[in-house]
């Protein structure tokens, strides 16, 4: 340039170092922000408790789920019997805890099915576009048109009851949501310059897909997964409520709620407390999902 700065005697203040938060600081800030949300913490703790109790119920109760005590039948909630007792004097708290493994395990498997199938469908259809996209999306549309519970009922009727059939039944029902979300994210990421830059750098489509498109499009899908965990739990509870659940005396959330229906006026806790237990779990999952969504935005 033609201007000469050499004889420039005036000293300017040194430019302040640009403040860019480092990655660790960002993560810490995010965690701090989460820690300041007490409702979020309570929700996380509650979900954690339910999952742990599903695998190791003995940690939280000393009674057995089938121990009948006719002398203490139909007790209202009190110390020693947190949720009261049922018609045969069985501790309801214990039965609720022992009733969770199938639901929780089936939910986890259903989510795994939905995420794998949904991601694959969404990525394939978003990535290849054209006929493949149109075809897959119409299939998804057909799935969407069938009410989820009806689909689950038919699958359970055909396959019989058990963790895997229930998981398949519920998982298939929530695949369309995953497929659609993934597809829209893939369509967005696919056109970004860094994908083109990778292509220009000689990367194969497989590499672009695996290293660029997938990691950058699964954020909203993860949020949806947490949200759909709640949906899956309600679907499984509905199945057992309708009588597709485990046979007595085995307990399950849906059957517990159904069994207490007849005593709603005299012994409200038989239906309401297990119901609240499930409702609180779904609510917690929804809240976690919403908080995560706000954070990633």
């Amino acid at each position, binding site marked *: 340039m033609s201007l000469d700065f050499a004889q*420039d005697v005036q000293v300017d203040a040194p430019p302040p170092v640009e403040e860019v*938060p480092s990655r660790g600081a960002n993560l810490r800030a995010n965690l701090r922000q989460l820690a300041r949300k007490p409702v979020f913490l309570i929700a996380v703790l509650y979900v954690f408790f339910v999952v742990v109790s599903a695998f190791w119920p003995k940690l939280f109760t000393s009674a057995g789920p089938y121990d009948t005590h006719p002398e203490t039948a139909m007790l209202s909630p009190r110390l020693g019997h947190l949720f009261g007792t049922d018609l045969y004097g069985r501790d309801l708290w214990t039965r609720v805890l022992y009733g969770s493994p199938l639901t929780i395990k089936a939910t986890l498997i259903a989510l795994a099915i939905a995420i794998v199938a949904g991601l694959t469908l969404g990525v394939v259809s978003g990535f290849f576009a054209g006929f493949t996209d149109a075809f897959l999306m119409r299939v998804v549309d057909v799935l969407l048109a069938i009410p989820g519970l009806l689909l689950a009922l038919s699958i359970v009727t055909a396959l019989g009851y058990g963790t895997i059939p229930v998981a398949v039944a519920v998982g298939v029902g929530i695949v369309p949501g995953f497929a659609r979300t993934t597809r829209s994210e893939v369509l967005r990421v696919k056109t970004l310059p*860094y994908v083109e830059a990778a292509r220009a750098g*000689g990367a194969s489509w497989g590499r672009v897909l695996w290293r660029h498109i997938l990691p950058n499009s699964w954020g909203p899908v993860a949020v949806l997964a947490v949200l759909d965990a709640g949906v899956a739990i309600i679907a499984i509870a509905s199945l057992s409520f309708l009588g597709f659940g485990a046979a007595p005396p085995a307990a399950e959330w849906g059957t517990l709620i159904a069994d207490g229906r007849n005593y709603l006026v005299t012994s409200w806790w038989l239906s309401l407390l297990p119901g609240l237990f499930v409702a609180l779990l779904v609510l917690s999952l929804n809240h976690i999902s919403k908080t995560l969504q706000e954070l990633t935005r």
Partner: protein
Amino acid sequence: MSALVEISGLDVGYLRHRTIRPAVVGLDLRVEPAEVVAVVGESGSGKTTLANAVIGLLPANGRVTAGSAIVDGVETAGAKERTLRKLRGSVVGLIPQDPMVGLNPTKRVGAQVAEAVRLRGGTEPAEEYLEQAGVPDPAMRARQYPHELSGGLRQRVLIAIALAGQPKLIIADEPTSALDVTVQKRILDHLSGLVREQGIGLLIITHDLAVAADRADRVIVMQHGRKVEEGDPRTILTVPRQHYTRQLIAAAPRLAHGGRVVPRFDVRGQEEPAAILTLTGVSKTFAVSDRRHGRRGFNALDNVSVTVPRGRTHALVGESGCGKTTTLRIALGLEPATGGSIKLDGTEITGLSWNKLRPLRRKAQLVHQDPFATLDPKFTIGQSITEPLVSFRIGDRRSRQARARELLDQVALPAAYLDRLPTELSGGQRQRVAIARALALRPELLMLDEPVSALDVLVQEQILQLLADLQQALGLSYLFVSHDLAIVAEISHTVSVMSEGRVVEQGPVAEVFTNPQSRHTRELIDAIPGQRADAV
């Protein structure tokens, strides 16, 4: 007469993590009626914050911590929403930065202008203001939707909306940075004409001192939230007191050379080196279909021939939509040409499949326009830079790391940046990383798609300098796409001026700039800001 805007000792900050970070510090500013004042500074200097504070549109975490801002006799610092609402539109009009998102896409533009008229309580037809804002055929345009208008027309509609409130002051926040230089010139000419005719005060916010100096009666230079210099453009240009102002002047090519555009390289009469890239008669037709005309072809490129000599820079210049980016993408094989031949280093690449083309990738690489989208946000800088090496399975982990360090060194970034994520870098730094990635395979040709147009003028100059240094050190050839002739003059040896898919003029930069043959070239040269420097 009292001032329209009187700001004294204004402090504005943003609340983040429970501390207030100052964005504007102790600022004083006056705007008289019928006066044009320009606020100049790089991004982050607080100029937009200042504009938003005046009109009471700070984001939710913005706080005015001290001082006062009196607009037309009303205190706006800490004022209630109701007081401010009376000011907006009728006293202060705002022309937002981005014409592409500034209009409601679901309403006809006439209705949007009419809304501003109605809010003031007026009854005149919207066409009147569209005409004032320089929209041709206003009656027809008023019935159109924003997506049917070009960027320049949309900007005029936004000006019409601002005028419809019959304000005493118009704030224009980077009113033209999203537009081509030629459109930019037309819009600014028109806006300053309106201001002088109607006695409206105008506050222009810009990062380009050349634009400010061309238009303003008074220029205020801001840096890090403080006013560093104030004065009339003549004084600022001739006797700048601050180092920062001098930097800004040096970064605006036309100001630096006293109002003339001086190409850096003069290759007239020199023998041209052998070509590394030759495009001969390349055409490209896109199929478009609309309801009225059915399916038809749209000629994006029509018989374009371009040659990039080895070790030199060839520039493609033109307004947006003239086909320069399409040419670049075709030359890189990212898009197939409809006709013609493309030879890269002697190899014909038209019709080659992806796999056949792939080895040629090592010879030519691409740098994108937008530094914020060109790096994968999930990749560290090191991963981004070494990605082409991984794709071509060159070297092992250790040798790739060493190469990444070397590349960072070449683009003047510290090696510590290898583990950083793109979000931790500024725009200029990201563009350096993008250049480093393009250099990873040791290509002979770099295709640069408006590599500096998204950056501040000062950073622009640094990147251009870096590109020039790299060319010298590594013997690179560049194909440089830009809409700005001032930038082309800084870096190119030869140039092709394009318009509507054709090359209208071609030759050494020094020749084309001193003796432009075509109308398009003359328009582009006239549009380079900084002409007022002629007078001083």
